[in-house]
């Protein structure tokens, strides 16, 4: 964490993830004269425009041209700058995927991509503006680090951490109406390390981004109403993923459910599934997310409810998994292969 900076200028309860990002970047810009900002006609929507207003000479708006946006940021990184690049997630991960992969990741350049409006957070805009594929795409790019902050406070932590983290980083945030989970930033955020929101022994909910709030709420209700001991892991870094915490959850809870605002193919759930499969250990497992379809149109809260990635949906899924027959009292679990 950077020294000498205070992080109290923002009010997490009234500011969106993107607004907090804009503020934090402005503060970092004071300390790091080699930070530059770039956007493609979305300076205001992504809030990187705050940095642009404060440091106009260090901000480049390239117009509606995302391929050029990422190519230019690669060039600036080559010249020794730390480019922070922001546009909507769908235009980053899809429109300019090759520039991100070839210009930035292949050359292992120090670009920080903060992609907004991810998942179904701009649900009313329809499929062209939904982005439920970006985690799958970005985590398949070698050298790329992929972070999905839970809320504004975690976004601030991720932005601070990525400045001193060498190499390309993709930070995925929403449109700005997601519920907040954290109230202050001192909870031990570290890139690549999961945060245990709550310990538990019956089942583990693994979540990221906007589902963290809902998972935490669900765990409380499941404790009160069902007497369940639910572990909640916030896997904010999808890559490199915290394998250790997941293996520990497999061993200690034997039931895992993943929740994410992303296609169930290729995202957090798939990353966790890989670890379960490679562990060689039995485990009840369900992935919840957008079920390999282009999501319906609607407000994010309605879509999350529909796809069961809100509090009620998570509760329902946990109960479903708990109801499944599962050999959970095997004393010799270690002998399984």
């Amino acid at each position, binding site marked *: 964490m950077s020294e000498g900076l205070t992080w109290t200028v923002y009010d997490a309860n009234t500011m969106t993830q993107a607004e907090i990002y804009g503020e934090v970047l402005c503060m970092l810009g004071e300390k790091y004269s080699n930070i*530059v900002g770039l956007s493609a006609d979305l300076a205001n929507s992504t809030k990187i425009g705050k940095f642009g207003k404060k440091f106009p000479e260090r901000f480049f708006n390239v117009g509606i041209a995302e391929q050029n946006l990422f*190519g230019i940021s690669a*060039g600036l990184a080559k010249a*020794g700058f730390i480019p922070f690049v922001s546009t909507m997630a769908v235009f980053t991960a899809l429109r300019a995927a090759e520039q991100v992969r070839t210009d930035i990741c292949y*050359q292992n350049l120090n670009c920080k991509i903060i992609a907004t409006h991810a998942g179904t957070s701009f649900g009313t805009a329809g499929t062209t503006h939904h982005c439920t594929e970006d985690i799958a795409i970005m985590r398949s790019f070698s050298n790329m680090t992929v972070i999905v902050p839970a809320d504004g406070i975690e976004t601030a932590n991720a932005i601070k951490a990525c400045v001193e983290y060498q190499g390309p980083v993709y930070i995925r945030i929403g449109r700005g109406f997601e519920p907040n989970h954290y109230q202050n930033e001192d909870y031990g955020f570290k890139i690549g390390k999961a945060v245990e929101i709550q310990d538990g022994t019956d089942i583990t909910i693994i979540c990221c981004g906007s589902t963290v709030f809902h998972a935490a709420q669900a765990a409380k209700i499941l404790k009160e109403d069902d007497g369940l001991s639910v572990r909640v892991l916030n896997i904010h870094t999808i890559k490199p993923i915290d394998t250790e915490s997941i293996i520990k959850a497999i061993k200690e809870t034997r039931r895992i459910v993943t929740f994410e605002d992303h296609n169930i193919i290729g995202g957090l759930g798939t990353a966790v599934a890989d670890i379960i499969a490679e562990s060689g250990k039995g485990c009840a497992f369900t992935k919840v997310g957008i079920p390999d379809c282009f999501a319906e149109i609607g407000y994010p809260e309605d879509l999350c409810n529909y796809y069961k990635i809100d509090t009620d949906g998570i509760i329902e899924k946990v109960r479903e998994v708990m109801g499944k027959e599962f050999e959970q009292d095997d004393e010799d679990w270690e002998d399984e292969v």
Partner: protein
Amino acid sequence: MTITADEIKQLKEKAWQIRKDIIDVTFWAGGAHIGGGLSMVEILTILYFKYLNINPSAPEFEDRDRFILSKGHGGVGLACVLARKGYFDFELLKDFNKFKSPFGIHLDCRKVKGVDASTGSLGHGLSMAVGLSLGARLKKKNWFTYCLLGDGECNEGSVWEAAMSASHFKLTNLIAIVDRNKLMIDGATEDVMGIEPFSDKWKAFGWIVKEINGHDFKAISDAIDYAKNEKDKPVIIIADTIKGKGVDFMESQVKWHYGGLDSDLLIKAKQSVDKAYGRD
């Protein structure tokens, strides 16, 4: 710095050597983009042996000029030039395309000294050059960024995104050159996807255009001198070239966009180059 007759003589000597190098490496590699490698020999030769402020002993020194080969498939040509400039031993190019070689068809800046950007996917180089040019301006550095594009490559929309931004940002520390050899893999540029009126397109995008003979050192030199002194708009040099230049059976032949050579063709190709330079 007007080019002298003596400089031109020395550059011709280098170009003769590099053309034969490209033929050798294509032979060793089993195949390479030899046509487009040969068409840009004069452009690369004059950049590396007259203009670029670079140092093979300190390939990363900050104030160096940058060069981005946006037509990344010309890697075989750039590799030969870098070897003759002293970045690495020419003999290392015997491993071109071999298992775990640092040298593949498209050069990797993390594996080959002297390469400023990994290119190969077309239409990416000019954007990176724009970023480097903005970076130089921001750092108040005087180095230039040169970017060599292929003409077929200019079908890519991203080239025009980059072109638009270079003029918008008034980048006069960026010098773009197009190797206008008029052929792409599937045929003539004007048959596959016409790009004419090419100069007018760049002018419309806010650039100053210099159209020259891309095999004429004096013409290239004059155009670069002009570009280096321009203080208002970015300059693009459209260099009219011949694909496969110097090898009679390859010149303007689309089938030599990419090709390999057997021992007989290797000898014939080199003889042809010698003949073209009056050294037979």
